[in-house]
Each structure stands twice: as structure tokens, then as C-alpha cells.
């Protein structure tokens, strides 16, 4: 695999001459990754990053549907202040399962492992990720972890909340807890392997011409995410191992009855789980940058500000975990410092928002579905961000901690942020992944349902939370009834939105119009390939001489490629054939 990356600096010292050929623009594909290998077995054993990405996407969608269904059940139960249709213990297990599945099976792998897997190598002009077999292994580790979690359901279930706080979780009664924590432990390795794979891929497999300042912002975002995955996830593994040791071997670490300290557990847990929040949201930022430039036909405003703020968030994100513990009994000094650092992490996030809006200025704005989701993202995620500032303020957090205000806040960030970004990315890259278009008017209607349903569900939760409604409550006092009922109605509207999406995407798969290689007229490298892409992504290794958002440059320039064609074992013959008529040129930029 060619991995030369002649940046301006490199070129000055070691001039690299590459034989480059101008290729005709990508046309309707004859042999795509979908037709190359067929059958269930070919899919299950594939090392193709695109197929693995789709398998992740399927798994994530499955878990999202399941956890979303649980959410509907929970909201229905909360229609009345007392029992509506399920028992307290069932309710407690359901909200735990909803949280654990959404966090570990949906949000963490959603963008990096599903969309990222598909798009990252294409944006780099690579044939695959650096370690394709490891990539497949991480998918199976993910599945394996999920199976363990479901085994816990057969062993009494678990009702601790997704945070597994001790000493409640050390209780002999929650036998299922061992299974689910083991599941999460296994799942962590999937995350670590994906992160390692992506970091290596970004460093080593960039096509000629993709210098660090020509890296798509989606790649920067995935890079920052991968660093967090590799550095933070092992701490979760350690924490869970300690928890298991305590549960199985009765070694006192967190349980005061055995001489442990429950606050220590919270420190360990949040040391992973706060950075994990950025594992979930930062890849979303990447998608927003890609979509907003394509549908404004314009260079991103503040490339470096956006790229570096992802890294800044990744770094500062490691230093703010204690803001989950302002009421926990941690030391006063720690509390003060954590509050201060929390505000610092808000700044790079705010900068990104301003940069995106500035990108729209004097653009050529087309409100296609992916762009609609970007607007929804900026609207909802800003609310999530501002309410995060509220929760970072010490005195106010004392009042709001563990109320529905927090519930609403993290849903605005995680669902209004990550999942909406995922929807933006899914609608943006769907034609690339499947080669088909979807029903645009229906897609916009669904987006409308989701936007309205989301706000009807979660805005009332801010109010009732500030009024004092605690989270994880099966029963509640009468004064909160109107808020809960509004919220429940909102969740149904939201569900309708997702059902519409399910319908038109399924329809698109079977009956969608052909998309063509580049339906959005994007400059992105991934769009210069056919839709769906060739098994090796490109028929030739692309040579990149412009940045990813250079909409002022002529499009044909992007069809340059190394004068060596990809093929299945016949590369040499093909190379000979093409070089004879190749146009040779240097890739050092003007």
C-alpha cells in the first residue's frame, strides 16, 4: 500500500516524484463491494471495512431500536404518578438496561465503528484500515460483550442504573451485575481495538497529497476520539475488574462493609465515563463539519480552530470527571478545581458552533435532509451545551444534581447531539454506502417529527427537574404529572419519526433511485469513488492536490490518481498497461 504523504515540508527536503495519471470521473460501478463477495458467510468473515461498518450499523440500529422501545415503556409507565402498568423492580431494571444499552452498545460505537469504519479509509484514499482482521475481531468482541449483557437478564437482571454505583451494586441480590459488567469489560476491548486501528490508519495510510492540513475534519474528529478510546477505556476495564473482585472474592475496595470506599468507585467510574461522553460526541462534530461544507459549497471557516478544538476537548475531557460528584462527598478542593476545568472544556465546543455558523455566511445553502439535521443538531446541541454550563456552576448544580434537569441535559447532548449527527451522517453517506437515494420529502417529514418530538419530550424535563423532580423515580408526587404526561406524548411523536425513517430507508434499499457517484456535488475524496464503492474503494490510489473543502477549485482536479491500478492479483500487468500512456507529473503543490 502506498503511504507516501508529501507535505510541503517533506517535499522541500526529499522531493518525491510520483507517476500520476488523470482518470475519467467515476461512473456507474460494475463491481462494487456489495457484489464482490456475496452470501452470509462472506459477510461474517469479511475484512472489508465497509462491510464491517455496515454490520456495526445494523447492530447499533438493532440496539437503538431495543433501547428506544424500553424508553417508550418507561415513559408510558410514568404517565401516572403511581403504577401504570409495570412493577417498581421491573421499571428499575428497564431504565438500567435502557441506559446501559444506549451508552455502551449504541452511542460509543455508533459513529466511529459504524460510519467511521466505512468512511474513514475512503476519506484517506486508503484501501482499508491498517489492521483489517483486527477490525473484524473488534466487531465480534462487541457482539460477544452484548451476549454477556443479555446473559445477565437470565440471571436475575440488574437494577443498579448504568453507573453501577457501589455499595448498591455489591449487593448479593444483584447477581446479574457480574454478567453485565463482564459484558461491558469485553466491550471495552472492542473500543480500544477500533481506536488503535484508526490512529494507525490515519498516520500511515493517507493517500499521496493528504498532509495533516488537508485531513478532512471528520478524520480529525475520529483521531481525537480514538485517542480517548485508547487512553480512557482501560480505566473502565480496571474499575470493572475491581468491582468483580469485590463481588466474587469479597475483597473490600468500594464497599464500606468490607472496608472500601464508595466515593473511590465514583472517581474510577467517571474517570472513564466522562471522557466516554466525548467518545460519543466528538465524532458527531466531524460529521457536522463534512455536511455543512458540502451543503454550503464552501470552505470550512476556521479549519484549524475546529481540528484543534477536538484535540483540546479530548485532552481537557480527561480532567473534568469530578463534576459528576459535586454532591458526593469528594474533597472541597477537588470540587472547586473540577468546576473550573469544566468551564474550560465548554469553550472549544462553543468555538466549533460559532465556526459552523460562520461557514454558512455567503455560502450556497441547500437544505437537503443531512443539512436539515445539521441545523437541528446546532439547535439541540446548543441547548445541551448551555445547560451543561448551568450544571458546571457549583451552587446551581447542588440544586439540579440527580434531577430530571440532568436527564434532559444529557439527552440534549447525547440524542440531540450524537444521534442527530449520526442521522445527518447516515443521510449524507447513505447514497455512498448503498448507491441508492431515499425519499427526500419523507425524510424531511421524519426530521420534523424527530425535532418536535424530541423537544416535547425533553423540554418539560428541564422544568420539572429544576422544580425538584429526582431522576430514576418510579413513583412521583402529583405536582409533576403534567410535565411527565407531556414528555410521554413527546416520546411517541419521536418514535413515529424513527418509524418513518425505517420505512423510507428500507424502501430505498430495494426501490431507491440510483444515486450516482456524487449526488451532493461534494469535494470530499470519498465522493470521487463510485456509489457503492469498488471493493478497494477506488480503482486507483487517488492523488490529492487540494484540501477537502476547496470548493473554489475545479472539480476535475480530483480525478488524479497514482498510475498503478488496483486489481485482484493482476496489479503488475495492469500497471504496465497504464504507465505506458501515463501523464507524469509531480505532486508537490503549487
Amino acid at each position, binding site marked *: 500500500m502506498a503511504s507516501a504523504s508529501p507535505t510541503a515540508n517533506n517535499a522541500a527536503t526529499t522531493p518525491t516524484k510520483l507517476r500520476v495519471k488523470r482518470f475519467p470521473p467515476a461512473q456507474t460501478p460494475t463491481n462494487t463491494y456489495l457484489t464482490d463477495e456475496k452470501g452470509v458467510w462472506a459477510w461474517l468473515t469479511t475484512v472489508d471495512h465497509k462491510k464491517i461498518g455496515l454490520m456495526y450499523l445494523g447492530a447499533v440500529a438493532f440496539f437503538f431500536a431495543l433501547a428506544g422501545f424500553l424508553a417508550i415503556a418507561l415513559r408510558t409507565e410514568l404517565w401516572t404518578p403511581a403504577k401504570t402498568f409495570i412493577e417498581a423492580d421491573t421499571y428499575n431494571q428497564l431504565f438500567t438496561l435502557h441506559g446501559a444499552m444506549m451508552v455502551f452498545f449504541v452511542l460509543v460505537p455508533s459513529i466511529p465503528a459504524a460510519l467511521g469504519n466505512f468512511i474513514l479509509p475512503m476519506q484517506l484514499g486508503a484501501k482499508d484500515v491498517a489492521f483489517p482482521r483486527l477490525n473484524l475481531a473488534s466487531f465480534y468482541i462487541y457482539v460477544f460483550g452484548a451476549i454477556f449483557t443479555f446473559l445477565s437478564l437470565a440471571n436475575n437482571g440488574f437494577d443498579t442504573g448504568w453507573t453501577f454505583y457501589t455499595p448498591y451494586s455489591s449487593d448479593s441480590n444483584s447477581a446479574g451485575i457480574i454478567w453485565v459488567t463482564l459484558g461491558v469489560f469485553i466491550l471495552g476491548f472492542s473500543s480500544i481495538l477500533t481506536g488503535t486501528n484508526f490512529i494507525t490508519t490515519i498516520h500511515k495510510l493517507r493517500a499521496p497529497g493528504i498532509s495533516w492540513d488537508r485531513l478532512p475534519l471528520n478524520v480529525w474528529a475520529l483521531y481525537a476520539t480514538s485517542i480517548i478510546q485508547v487512553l480512557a477505556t482501560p480505566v473502565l476495564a480496571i474499575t470493572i475488574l475491581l468491582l468483580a473482585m469485590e463481588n466474587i472474592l469479597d475483597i473490600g475496595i468500594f464497599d464500606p462493609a468490607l472496608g472500601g*470506599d464508595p466515593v473511590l468507585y465514583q472517581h474510577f467510574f467517571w474517570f472513564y465515563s466522562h471522557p466516554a461522553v466525548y467518545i460519543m460526541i466528538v465524532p458527531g462534530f466531524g460529521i457536522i463539519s463534512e455536511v455543512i461544507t458540502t451543503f454550503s459549497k464552501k470552505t470550512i471557516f476556521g479549519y*484549524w480552530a475546529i481540528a484543534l478544538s477536538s484535540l483540546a476537548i479530548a485532552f481537557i475531557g480527561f480532567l473534568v470527571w469530578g463534576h459528576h460528584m459535586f454532591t458526593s462527598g469528594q474533597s472541597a478542593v477537588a470540587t472547586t478545581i473540577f468546576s473550573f476545568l469544566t468551564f474550560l472544556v465548554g469553550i472549544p465546543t462553543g468555538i466549533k458552533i460559532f465556526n459552523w455558523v*460562520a461557514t454558512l455566511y455567503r*455560502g450556497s445553502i441547500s437544505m437537503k435532509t443531512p443539512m436539515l439535521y445539521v441545523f437541528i443538531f446546532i439547535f439541540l446541541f446548543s441547548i445541551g451545551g*448551555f445547560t451543561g454550563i448551568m450544571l458546571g456552576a457549583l*451552587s*446551581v448544580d*447542588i*440544586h439540579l444534581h*440527580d434531577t430530571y434537569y440532568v436527564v434532559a441535559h444529557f439527552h440534549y447532548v447525547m440524542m440531540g447531539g450524537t444521534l442527530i449527527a449520526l442521522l445527518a451522517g447516515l443521510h449524507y453517506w447513505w447514497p455512498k454506502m448503498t448507491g441508492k437515494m431515499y425519499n427526500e420529502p419523507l425524510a424531511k417529514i421524519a426530521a420534523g417529527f424527530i425535532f418536535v418530538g424530541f423537544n416535547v419530550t425533553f423540554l418539560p424535563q428541564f422544568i420539572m427537574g429544576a422544580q425538584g423532580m429526582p431522576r430514576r423515580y418510579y413513583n412521583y408526587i402529583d405536582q409533576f404529572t403534567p410535565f411527565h404526561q407531556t414528555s410521554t406524548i413527546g416520546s411517541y411523536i419521536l418514535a413515529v419519526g424513527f418509524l418513518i425513517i425505517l420505512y423510507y430507508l428500507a424502501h430505498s434499499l430495494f426501490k431507491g433511485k440510483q444515486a450516482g457517484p456524487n449526488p451532493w456535488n461534494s469535494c470530499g475524496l470519498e465522493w470521487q469513488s463510485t456509489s457503492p464503492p469498488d471493493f478497494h474503494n477506488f480503482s486507483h490510489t487517488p492523488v490529492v492536490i487540494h484540501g477537502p473543502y476547496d470548493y473554489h477549485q475545479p472539480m476535475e482536479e480530483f480525478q488524479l490518481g497514482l498510475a498503478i491500478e488496483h486489481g485482484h492479483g493482476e496489479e503488475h500487468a495492469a500497471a504496465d498497461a497504464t504507465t505506458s500512456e501515463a501523464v507524469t507529473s509531480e505532486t508537490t503543490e503549487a
Partner: protein
Amino acid sequence: MGRLFDFMLPENKSPLTADTTDELFNFINEASLVIFLGVVLAMIYFAIRYKRKSEDDKTPVITHNNTLEITWSVIPLLLTFIVFGWGYSGWLNLKTVPDDAYEIHITGFKWNWSVSYDNGAQTINEIHVPKGQPIKLVMQSRDVLHSFFVPEYRVKHDVLPNRYTYVWFQAEETGESQVFCTEYCGTSHSNMLAKVIVHEPEEFQTWLDENGGGPSGSPVEQGEQLVSLQGCQTCHSVDGSELIGPSFKGIWGRDRNLADGSSVTVDENYIRESILYPGEKIAEGYQNVMTPYEGRISDEEITNIIEYLKTID
């Protein structure tokens, strides 16, 4: 003074602890609203003003603007410094108990709040306090984590099994305020409620004097008061209705089936064991969730409770 976002907050019944919180809550909301509207309106305006006219539209190359970027980095940074300082000083106030505070001890356990006063008086899920005096609640848990939250005072703190924590407030009007447990603690977490009952100072003194000294009367009467004070009735009914644990009604002398398939006669020793080490014998159809009372209750108190249980038919 009415502020825009006051509608979101509950009544403020302890201004000394709640005022700065409320002011900051309003300030952050107002500042956020301004910036939020700016962002969203700009976004919508651009979308309309620069709507795509043709696929061949040319757009200008605007890569960055240092002045603009520094402005929108520094202003939010300064704003967050203000918010940090404000929140910090409010929080210091919440941590700093006035010297003349009246101390009350709170013990949280699944799923009750037990309250003890300086003259030995005890209550369950009712915290009686005098108006206009700072109150310090010294809290601990007997089992898992709980959290003590009074929205109307804007105070909250986790209640831990291995250390004491505290909150303080000063109620300025008589009446009742709702207490919630806000740290998830199992089946009846959402029923772990209490009330703060604020009296006029003289009235409070009278109440305290009348209730000092703990349970009194015949063993059966004392047993009845203990069952109430220890929070037993949260999970065990006396009228036969089904709660989290078996009902007390008519249990004396009966055979009880256990979860492990054996059975046992309900006698003095069974009741004693079930109070001190509830995990030893689990009644069929129930979960092992009761907090052990070992070290929390005297033999004499157990005897009185047994005497009382004998009388419930």
C-alpha cells in the same frame, strides 16, 4: 423580584441558602438565551439569505478571521469565569454552616429517613425544625448511598455509609417542605420521601419537650412506637396488605415457607434473627433487600417489638 426563569424554580423557603443559586440560575439562563438566539437566528438568516440558486454557485473563500475568532473565544471565556466565581461563592455559602446552627441527626436507610434530636426525641420521615434559625443536618447512611434533597431550600448532599455529611438551611416560613432521596437506592427509591415541618420557635420547643425521651408505656405500646420509628411499616404492613416485605398481620405462631423450600415457625427467635440478620431466612416470594439491624437496636427493644407483633391479628 421577578426574573424571567423564576417559573422553573420551586418556591424559595430558605433565602440564605437559595438566593444566590436562584440569581445564578437566572443569569446563566438569560445569558444563554441571548447567545442561543444569536446563533440560531444567524443560522436561519444565512439559510434564507444565501439559499442555493444553482448548482454552479460560486462561494467566496473565507478560511478564518482572527479578530472574530478571538472575540468569540474570549467573551465566552470571561462569561464562564464569572459563572465559575459566582457558583463557587454560592457553594462556599452552602458549605459554611452558621455558628449558631441547631443540629439534627439524620440516618438514611432503605427506604426511610430516621431523625434524632438533641433531647433523644426521634421521628421517622418527618424533620421538625424551628422557623428563622439555621439548622444543620448531620447525615449518615445505614446501607447504600442515598442523597438528601430539599428543592425549596436548594440543598442536597449524598448520604454515605462510611462518613458523615451535612447540609444546612434556615426556613423562613412555617409549613411543610418536600424531601426527596436523589441517589438511586433500589425498589422503593422513589418512595423514600420525607417532610421538613417548620414550626414557630416556641411551638417547636413544646413539640420537642413532649416527644423527648423515646418510646414509653407498656412493652406492647413501646413496641408499636418502635415499629413506627424504625420505619418497619414502609415495607411491612399491619393490615395484611402486600408491600415489599411480608405483612405483620397474624404472623405470630404461624408456619412460614422460606425461599429455600424449608419452613419455620414464627417465634421469638425467628423474629429476633429476622431483625438482626434479615438475609438468613428469606420468606418465600420476597427479595433479600432489608437492611440488617445488627448493632442498631437493643435486646430490650427487640423484646418490645416481639410483644407488639404478638398482638397484631
